[in-house]
């Protein structure tokens, strides 16, 4: 018994150490980072964070990311909800192939779509807009949302639908007033996953933007390639990217395991 928890503890320690190191560096001056090696900051400073909150080049990156991530989450959920219901309740012509085709888009490397996306969004004048990134991220988020929601919906007994229809509910009214509240945990988890996968993605977000919608991830990689790294500011920016994820995970903490199992347990 004891050994079992020691293993778990050691593993969690392994997960936390690199994160701690980043937090540690973000609270030091870059000079201290480069000259002395210390496990805790010798002279605690919040200057790095102050730089980020006062420089528009930095904080607009966060705003851009949050805008397209939110757009993406809402749009993905809106189109995925009815589709997931259809997959979980009915058989129809080509349903299995359609489902697999959706999944291939979750599996396909974004790099494959990079080139045509760049051309597509440039030609319709959406290049460097938030909506372009949100649409591009729907490529992998919509299939994922359908997949998770379908799992959650299949767990709801079909008798509920039948009773509602017998009671004279129309489909939209049934769906909004009875069905949605029943799977709200599933919707929450799905929203969390859409948020997360859009938040962590770098390749498409960076390629489809240049100035106006430039995400924080791209701001950070540009800093990396510049000579003379400002480790303090870079790590502070990294720490700040963890906060949205940590906040949303709190709301779905009781369903997170089931969500990662795509609602299929």
């Amino acid at each position, binding site marked *: 018994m004891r050994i079992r928890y020691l293993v778990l503890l050691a593993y969690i320690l392994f997960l936390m150490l*690199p994160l701690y190191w980043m937090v540690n560096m973000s609270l030091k001056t870059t000079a201290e980072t480069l000259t002395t090696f210390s496990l805790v900051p010798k002279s605690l400073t919040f200057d790095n964070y102050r730089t980020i909150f006062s420089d528009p080049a930095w904080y607009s990156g966060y705003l851009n990311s949050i805008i397209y991530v939110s757009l993406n989450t809402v749009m993905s959920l809106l189109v995925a909800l009815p589709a997931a219901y259809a997959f979980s309740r*009915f*058989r*129809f012509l080509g349903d299995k192939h*359609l489902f697999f085709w959706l999944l291939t888009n979750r599996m396909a490397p974004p790099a494959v779509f990079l*080139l045509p996306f760049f051309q597509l969004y440039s030609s319709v004048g959406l290049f460097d807009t938030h909506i372009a990134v949100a649409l591009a991220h729907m490529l992998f988020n919509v299939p994922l949302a359908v997949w998770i929601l379908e799992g959650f919906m299949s767990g709801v007994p079909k008798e509920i639908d039948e009773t509602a229809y017998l009671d004279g509910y129309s489909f939209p009214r049934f769906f909004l007033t009875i069905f949605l509240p029943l799977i709200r945990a599933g919707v929450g988890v799905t929203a969390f996953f859409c948020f997360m996968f859009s938040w962590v993605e*770098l390749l498409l977000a960076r390629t489809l933007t240049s100035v106006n919608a430039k995400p924080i991830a791209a701001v950070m990689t540009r800093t990396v390639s510049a000579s003379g790294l400002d480790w303090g500011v870079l790590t502070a920016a990294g720490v700040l990217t963890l906060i949205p994820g940590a906040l949303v995970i709190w709301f779905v903490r009781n369903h997170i395991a089931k969500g990662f199992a795509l609602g299929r347990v």
Partner: protein
Amino acid sequence: MDKPVNQKAWLLVLPVVATVAFSAVIPLMTVVNYSLQDIFDPQTRYFVGTEWFREVLNNPSIRAALGRQLLFSLIVLLIEIPLGIGIALTMPRRGPWVPVCLILLALPLLVPWNVVGTIWQIFARPDIGLLGRLVNGLGIPYNYTGNPLHAWLTVLVMDVWHWTSLVVLLCYAGLQAIPDAYYQAARIDGASRFAVFRHIELPRLKGVLLIAVLLRFMDSFMIYAEPFVLTGGGPGSSTTFLSQLLTTMAVGQFDLGPAAAFSLIYFLIILLFSYVFYTAMVRLGRAEG
């Protein structure tokens, strides 16, 4: 399978089909078009047939990257799947510590992929990183920016750090779904811990493990941001994987034709693997009812 047949369901899936068609079918068609032409600008382009495909298939650096990629995905699966199962078994099944463990475990998954690279960059650097200092302090000369083997090990450890939690969470969800009655029956029979794992837990984990293998294989096969930030694909090209090579071709050098041919081959590989895994998953689901 007692789902009723209802063709009206197509109306419900129509929005999804429309969005995904816009962002998947049109781009894929475009890639096919590009792959057969030499393109200078939209007005100046020449049909070159399958020349780009031949070139890509015989390109030594693409072949090397493909080999590297397959090896990487294989090693990642071999480490992360058993480790994930193991860690999931050590988790408490209920109690106040469960949500704490879950959130701590899920934390690496929420880190933007390029920040994962940054975290490991500063953690492993021999001059300012804790890990780098520690390993060098033990008398092992370690420098991931100069030594290909060290770079590989760092990328692997980074991926284990980043993604094993996904396997843990999947397995944990699977374990939670096993009714207590099974364990009680095993206790009455006096089954050993290993027997419980082998005959009760493992069979019941098959479903989630397939999902885990599917997701881990696909995601490791498209790894981009983490090694890009950590090592930039180096030293040399020792940690350059497929996505990075393709990105360099597509938006670095703007070689539209070869990049498109490369994209299609990459996509076909993924399509084959996901079809095999998915078919296995569906059949398993059906066998269990």
